[in-house]
């Protein structure tokens, strides 16, 4: 475990360091930028597919869904269809709701030991932080398509317009940017401030948050405070997507910091807990219907047991039994 964390740290920090170095290196080192971007994308895609393949090929001999409601049983007992799905369809619906709305985090509660009793109450901060973070990240990722695709898809332009309802200063303020930073700050402070959460937090938990924060901060700085030549950046991004990379001239050091940090994050994802973006779909406690009693599931690798049933024994000894006058 310690080895894996160190490996993850190396993968995450090496490109980031080279990005910072690049900002101060001569222009001929610009050639590193497309190489790092391609390498990061390849590691992300192939690494995630390899991890998915490992999960796919792991046998799931028994159904182990987490159930949070009444199982389907007798006709007159109303089942909790979503929280205890008994068919593939309802299991899929529960999975979709989980992925889109994080229903399981709504069950988060905190217990407190009082003088005479332990009380427990709902704690929705984690759910709120998580859902704001994930949805704003999705919106920001989709907005980035304006840099990679030429001509810009119509839905990206619409999304941009919806995301920036207030015209503030020379740059429209994207609400998703504000929401992402606030949510990330909350999630990090929660880890640091709550002693129970701090106790179970590992280096890799902080690393994921730090990387995301750094990518977001460099992006926000670049867009709102420092300013960059967007057309040059777009030319670089489009040329990457067309597999004929041009060197990113005139893009400025902050762009490289942003790019290399984003590459570090992408390359780190398959080795980290951020792989939950793929893992949640293959999680056996989530994607299976709870029909252990309604359907017989046979372990596929059961060794073939040589059996000799009573019916077979009767059939074999039919004549002897008959001649001895023993009733079947």
């Amino acid at each position, binding site marked *: 475990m310690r080895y894996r964390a160190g490996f993850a740290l190396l993968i995450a920090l090496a490109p980031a360091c080279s990005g910072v170095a690049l900002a101060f290196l001569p222009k001929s080192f610009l050639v590193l930028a497309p190489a790092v971007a391609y390498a990061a994308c390849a590691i992300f895609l192939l690494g995630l597919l390899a991890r998915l393949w490992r999960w796919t090929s792991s046998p799931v001999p028994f159904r182990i869904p987490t159930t949070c409601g009444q199982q389907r049983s007798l006709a007159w007992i109303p089942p909790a269809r979503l929280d205890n799905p008994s068919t593939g369809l309802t299991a899929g619906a529960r999975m979709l709701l989980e992925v889109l709305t994080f229903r399981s985090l709504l069950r988060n509660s905190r217990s407190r030991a009082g003088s005479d009793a332990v009380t427990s109450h709902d704690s929705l901060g984690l759910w709120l932080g998580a859902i704001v973070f994930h949805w704003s990240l999705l919106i920001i990722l989709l907005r980035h398509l304006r840099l990679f695709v030429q*001509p810009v898809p119509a839905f990206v332009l619409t999304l941009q317009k919806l995301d920036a309802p207030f015209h503030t*200063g020379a740059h429209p303020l994207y609400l998703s940017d504000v929401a992402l930073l606030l949510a990330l700050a909350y999630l990090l402070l929660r880890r640091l401030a709550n002693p129970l959460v701090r106790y179970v937090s590992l280096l890799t938990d902080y690393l994921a948050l730090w990387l995301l924060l750094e990518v977001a901060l460099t992006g926000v700085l670049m867009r709102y405070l420092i300013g960059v030549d967007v057309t040059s950046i777009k030319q670089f991004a489009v040329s990457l997507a067309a597999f004929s990379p041009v060197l990113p001239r005139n893009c400025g050091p902050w762009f490289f910091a942003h790019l290399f940090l984003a590459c570090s994050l992408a390359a780190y994802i398959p080795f980290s807990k951020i792989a939950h973006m793929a893992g949640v779909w293959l999680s056996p406690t989530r994607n299976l219907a709870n029909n252990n009693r309604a359907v017989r599931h046979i372990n596929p690798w059961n060794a073939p047991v040589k059996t000799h049933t009573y019916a077979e024994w009767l059939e074999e000894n039919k004549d002897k039994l008959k001649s001895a006058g023993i009733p079947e």
Partner: protein
Amino acid sequence: MRERWLITLGYGVFVVFFTFPLWRAAAARSSGSMPRLQSSPAGQCVAPVEQMRVAHMNMLFQWREDAVRHNNLTFVAYNGKVYRKSLDGTCLSCHDKQQFCDRCHAYSGVSGPDCWNCHNDPRAFAPRVMP
């Protein structure tokens, strides 16, 4: 495993979404290179090109504040030249909205600036020369 086709479908969806820019670029068949803009006929802008590329929006925003709120219409450029803080009179006397502003804004998907809520493109309303 009976669900293998479903999982394979999931792989496919993931790969297709992740590589969206690749096949979209192949389908669009546009060169993707940035628009080549004509340099201003006067040969000199109010600030160096690199600075205008990065920060022209800040300058225009500042000019608007100065002109509308403070009635301060004089801009002294980096090389000592004096310009009038005017989009129509200064910027658009050299640059063309459609050939200059719009091309880069469309290319980088920067939503339309507020300029044209008040200002007109003077060349769009130029009197036609009758033959």
